[in-house]
C-alpha cells in the first residue's frame, strides 16, 4: 500500500517436511519394536517379585518359569499366528486335554508303539484345528462361535473317553522323556527347548517368508489381500490347523512332564494363550503381531504364577494380578503402536 512504511517482515514458519528423513536417537528407534511393551512388563514383574523375594532370580526359579511357560507358550505361539491372520480359537484347552489323553490311552490301553501313538495324537489335534477352520470359513460363522462349540464338544469327548478319570503312565517311556520328562539344565525341562525351537521356526515363517506376508495381509485387510491374489481361505485354514497341532503338542508335553493326563486340565488355556499373545503385542483384531512378543508374554504369565507363590501371596491374587498386567501391557502396546507406525 502507498504511503505506509515497509510492512514488518514476517518470518515464515519453518514448516517441518512431512515424513522428512530424521534420524532418531538409538533409544527412540528401540521403541519402534512391538516387543517393547511386553519387555517393560517383564522387567516390572521381575523387579516387583525380586524386591520381595530374593530367591526369585535364582537359576532354579528361572528354570521353573521357562518350563511352565513352555506348555502355555507352545499354544500361545499358535494362537498368535492365528490371531494375526484374523481368527481365534477357544477350543485349544479341550484339544490340549483330548490329545494328551489320546496319547496316554493309546500307549497304556491299546499298547500302541509310543511314536505311532504320538503321530496319531498330533494328527487328531491338527484335524480338530482343520475342522474348526473348515466350519468357520465354509459356513461363515465367526471363529469365536465355532471354537466355543468345539471347546465344549471335545471336552465332553475327553471326559467320555475315561469317564472322568485321569490316566497315568508308570512305565518309563523314552518318548515321554523326550517330550517333557527329562531335564536339560537344572530345573529346565526339555519341553522348554522344544518351545524355543518352535518359537524360532514360527518367527521365521511369519517375518521372513512370503507366507508370513500373506498372514499379515489376510488379517490386516482380507479383501485387499484377496484382490492381490493372496489365497486367504487357504492361509486361514492352514493357521487353524497349525494351532490345533500346537495345542496337541502342548498336551503331549504336559503328559511327558507329569506322567499323567486328566480330561479336566487345560480349561483356562485358551484365554491364557490369548492373554499371553496380547500382552506380547499381538492385536486381537489381527493384522499385526510378533512371535518374540508372544514368547515374552508367556514368560510374563508364568513369572507371575511362580512369583506369587514365592512371595506367599494368597492364591486369589493370581487372577487380579494377571488382569492388571494384561490391561497395562495392552495399554502400553497401544501407546507404543503410535510410535511404531512412525506417527510420533
Amino acid at each position, binding site marked *: 500500500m502507498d504511503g505506509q512504511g515497509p510492512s514488518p517482515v514476517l518470518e515464515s514458519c519453518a514448516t517441518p517436511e512431512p*515424513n522428512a*528423513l530424521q534420524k532418531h536417537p538409538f533409544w527412540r528407534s528401540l521403541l519402534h519394536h512391538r516387543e517393547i511393551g511386553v519387555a517393560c512388563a517383564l522387567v516390572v514383574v521381575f523387579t516387583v517379585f525380586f524386591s520381595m523375594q530374593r530367591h526369585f532370580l535364582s537359576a532354579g526359579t528361572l528354570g521353573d518359569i521357562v518350563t511352565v511357560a513352555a506348555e502355555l507358550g507352545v499354544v500361545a505361539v499358535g494362537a498368535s499366528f492365528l490371531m494375526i491372520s484374523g481368527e481365534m480359537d477357544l477350543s485349544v484347552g479341550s484339544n490340549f486335554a483330548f490329545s494328551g489323553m489320546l496319547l496316554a490311552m493309546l500307549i497304556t490301553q491299546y499298547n500302541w508303539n509310543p511314536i505311532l501313538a504320538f503321530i496319531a495324537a498330533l494328527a487328531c489335534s491338527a484335524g480338530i484345528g482343520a475342522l474348526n477352520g473348515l466350519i468357520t470359513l465354509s459356513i461363515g460363522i465367526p471363529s469365536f462361535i465355532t471354537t466355543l462349540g468345539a471347546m465344549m464338544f471335545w471336552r465332553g469327548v475327553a471326559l467320555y473317553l475315561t469317564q472322568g478319570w485321569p490316566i497315568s503312565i508308570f512305565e518309563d517311556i523314552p518318548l515321554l522323556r523326550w517330550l517333557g520328562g527329562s531335564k536339560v539344565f537344572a530345573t529346565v525341562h526339555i519341553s522348554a527347548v522344544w518351545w524355543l525351537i518352535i518359537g524360532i521356526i514360527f518367527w521365521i515363517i511369519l517375518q521372513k*517368508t512370503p507366507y*508370513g*506376508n500373506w498372514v499379515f495381509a489376510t488379517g490386516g485387510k482380507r*479383501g485387499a*489381500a484377496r*484382490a*492381490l491374489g493372496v489365497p486367504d481361505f487357504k492361509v486361514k485354514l492352514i493357521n487353524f490347523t497349525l494351532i490345533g497341532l500346537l495345542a496337541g503338542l502342548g498336551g503331549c508335553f504336559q503328559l511327558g512332564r507329569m506322567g499323567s493326563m486328566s480330561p479336566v486340565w487345560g480349561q483356562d488355556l485358551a484365554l491364557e494363550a490369548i492373554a499371553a499373545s496380547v500382552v506380547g503385542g499381538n492385536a486381537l483384531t489381527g*493384522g499385526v503381531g510378533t512371535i518374540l512378543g508372544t514368547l515374552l508374554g508367556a514368560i510374563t504369565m508364568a513369572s507371575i504364577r511362580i512369583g506369587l507363590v514365592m512371595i506367599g501371596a494368597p492364591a486369589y491374587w493370581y487372577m487380579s494380578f494377571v488382569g492388571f498386567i494384561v490391561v497395562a501391557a495392552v495399554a502400553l502396546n497401544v501407546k507404543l503402536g503410535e510410535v511404531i507406525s512412525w506417527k510420533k
Partner: protein
Amino acid sequence: MEKMTSPAPSHVPVIEGIKLCKWFGRVAALKDVDITIERGKVVGLVGDNGAGKSTLIKILSGVHRPDSGELWFEGKKVELNSPRDARKLGIETVYQDLALVETMSIARNFFLGAEPKIRFGFFNLLDGRKMRQATEKMLRDIGITVRSAHQEVSTLSGGERQAIAIGRTMHFGGKVLILDEPTSALSVHETNKVLSYIDEARNRGLSVIFITHNLYHVYPVADKIIVLEHGRKVGDFRKEETSVEELIDIIVHGIRGDRRAVNNASG
C-alpha cells in the same frame, strides 16, 4: 525395475470384451456389453450409480466370471478364474479401499502377492533387501519422502497411497491398469498428481481403465470414454467426439436419439 510391456502387434487390442453379461440373482448387472481397450490408451468408464462399472471391471480383473460373453487378451481367448489369473496376464487392479493393507509396511504392501524369494533348500524366504531397495526406488521415482520403506502405510496420505498402488502396478510389468475411483477422496493437489501418474503410465505403454464419477477428472486424460447405464453400454466416444457437458447430459438424461453414440466401436 519396470518391465517394458511386451510387444504384441499394435493393432490388436489389449483387452476385448464381447457381449459380456452378468446376473446377480434376478438383477442384470451387465447386459451385452462390448468393450475394447487398445494398447497405450486411457479409457474412462463412467455412469451413474448402479450402472455396472464395478461389475465390469471385476470381470476384467478376475473377481467375477461372466455368465455369458467372451474375454480376449492380446488376441487370445481367456478365462479368468481368480484375481491371480488376471495378475498373471498383467491386468492389475487398484480398488478404492482395497489397494493397500494399512497395518503393513510400504515394502510389504508393494510386494504383496508377488513377493521376491530366496530359495533355501525346500523353503522360500523373503528377499528383504530386494524389497527394500525396490520400494525405496519407487518412492523416489514417485516423489514421496518417507523415513523408511518399513513405515506403515497408515502414515501416508490418500494420494500417496494411490500413488504407491499405481507404482506397484507399473513395477510389476502390468499391461493394463484398472483404477476404481482413484480420485474420489483426494484433494485438488493430490488429484493432479494421480492424473499425472496415469499420464506417465500411458507414456510407458500401459493401458489404463479409469472408473470415476467425476467427468472433469477423467476427460483431460482419457483417450476414450465409455458410458454405462443400467448394465448396458450407452456411449462409446473418442475424446474429440464429445465434451464433458454432453457426457453429463447423457448420464443424467439417457441416450439421445440423434447421436451416433450407441455401440460405436471407434478407437
